[in-house]
């Protein structure tokens, strides 16, 4: 959670994912998109300014150490940011990863090198909806076109995804049908980010509510009730 202002408007801290953490230099990187008041204020901070942040909160992507698994990162838009974090938490596992990234158009693109030098040269498959960069189409189309090739390698794909609900919902169906393990990082409105307000609840497949900030934001897709999950506005 980042406090974007010292005033009461905007009042609440804003949730962001850690995109990259470098423990040797004690730094973290956050990549964000300006969508409103808070992110606009954040974008006006200058190098050297200080910000109140609380971190790390919630649960990140689980890592499966096995020869037979292949991590697949599937990001929609700015949703690529949390996925890249596995390169800083478990490099040897992440080394085997395939990265699929879908954006609307060229304007949304950024070079991962800007986050950390070590992220350059990742095996990235890129798509854009308007075709101005990478393959034309959605990231799901891109993924579906490649999933059989991956299967042929005789490895078990494990998918890590983050993006709009309209991307995650069909993805959860695809992975369910194809028996692929899927972990998603969800976005909901949040007030505290620390588990106290119960404002960030998402419906679970067991008919309960789970807190995105505590039990998530990364969930096993099978634990969620997707019909009841809506786009975060």
């Amino acid at each position: 959670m980042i406090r974007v202002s010292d005033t009461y408007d905007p009042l609440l801290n804003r949730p962001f994912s850690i995109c990259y953490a470098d423990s040797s230099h004690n730094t973290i990187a956050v990549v964000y998109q300006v969508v409103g008041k808070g992110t606009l204020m954040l974008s006006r901070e200058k190098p050297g300014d200080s910000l109140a942040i609380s971190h790390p909160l919630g649960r990140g992507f689980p890592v499966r150490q096995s020869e037979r698994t292949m991590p697949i990162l599937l990001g929609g838009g700015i949703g690529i940011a949390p996925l890249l974090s596995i390169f800083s938490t478990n490099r040897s596992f992440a080394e085997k990863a395939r990265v699929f990234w879908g954006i609307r158009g060229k304007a949304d693109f950024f070079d991962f090198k800007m986050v950390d030098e070590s992220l350059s040269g990742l095996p990235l498959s890129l798509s854009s909806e308007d075709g101005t960069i990478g393959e034309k189409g959605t990231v799901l189309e891109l993924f579906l076109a490649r999933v059989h090739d991956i299967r042929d390698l005789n490895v078990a794909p494990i998918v890590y995804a983050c993006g709009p609900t309209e991307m995650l919902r069909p993805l959860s169906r695809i992975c369910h049908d194809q028996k692929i393990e899927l972990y998603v990082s969800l976005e909901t409105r949040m007030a505290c980010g620390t588990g106290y307000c119960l404002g960030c609840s998402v419906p679970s497949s067991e008919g309960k509510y789970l807190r995105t900030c505590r039990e998530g934001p990364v969930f096993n897709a099978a634990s969620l009730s997707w019909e009841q999950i809506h786009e975060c506005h």
Partner: protein
Amino acid sequence: MNVIDLSTEISGLQFSSPLMTASGTAGYGKEFLQAPCPSLGAFVTKGISLKPRKGNPPPRVCETSCGLLNAIGLENIGLEAFLNEILPFFSGENPPLIVNIFGESTQEIVEIASRLSKHQAVKALELNVSCPNVRAGGIAFGKDARILSALIRDVKSKASQPVWVKLTPSVNDIAVIAKAAEEAGADAITVANSYTGIAVDIEREEYCLGNITGGLTGPAIKPLSQYAVWQVVKEVRVPVIASGGCASARDALEYFLLGARAVQIGTMALVNPSIFDEILDGLEEFFKRRGIPSLNNWIGRLK
């Protein structure tokens, strides 16, 4: 003059600090009190009902100008889980425990009160009367002086601890309700709760909250809650605990000047977890600067 006395007394209980958590903004205590919080005078729990409650469909929160609109729907683990999983955790090391309770019928609320009255760790009950009374056609207990009086009498007859009554500000005349609560035996009055509001999204042409209506809290409501405190302190002799928009030592000092004996901090503690320490330091600094020896010398000075 070195040490400022910031202690306060409410319903026969002595608190080392006049700051408390506000119900629903710090959980049940087990997690929140993992780190010691000496600046906290008392810990007020999330509202507990007889049976667990699932709460409202999302989205449950929405930010508005200087405020937070919430429709959590009183989700909670229920009395049974509270007694088994939370209460054993509380010991003398922790700040005094105040349990916020509510229900949809008098019977339900009285049962919670009588079961909690067996537990010494529970220092007082805070009765949230903003919840609709299902038997009485759904009108909130706290909106009708007669219904409220009857409820308080029944709870008082079963509770061994002091009963604090937390009023809803969504009434015509809060002073009348407060007076009725006092006459029925309330040992203290918390003024007040959130204000009902809505928010709409013009792009999607939708309501912002899943429940449509929610409760407005945070700095936006401070002048309204201060008005309510001002009205109530004139009417009753029992201690008044303030709740609404407290964000700084200055805000707390305003409430004390109006006559509140303690202040609960909710929304701003969600934003800044170290707010209790900061406010207590600020109170001490202010009283030192002004040469005022104790909080008690300040409370209610504005007539």
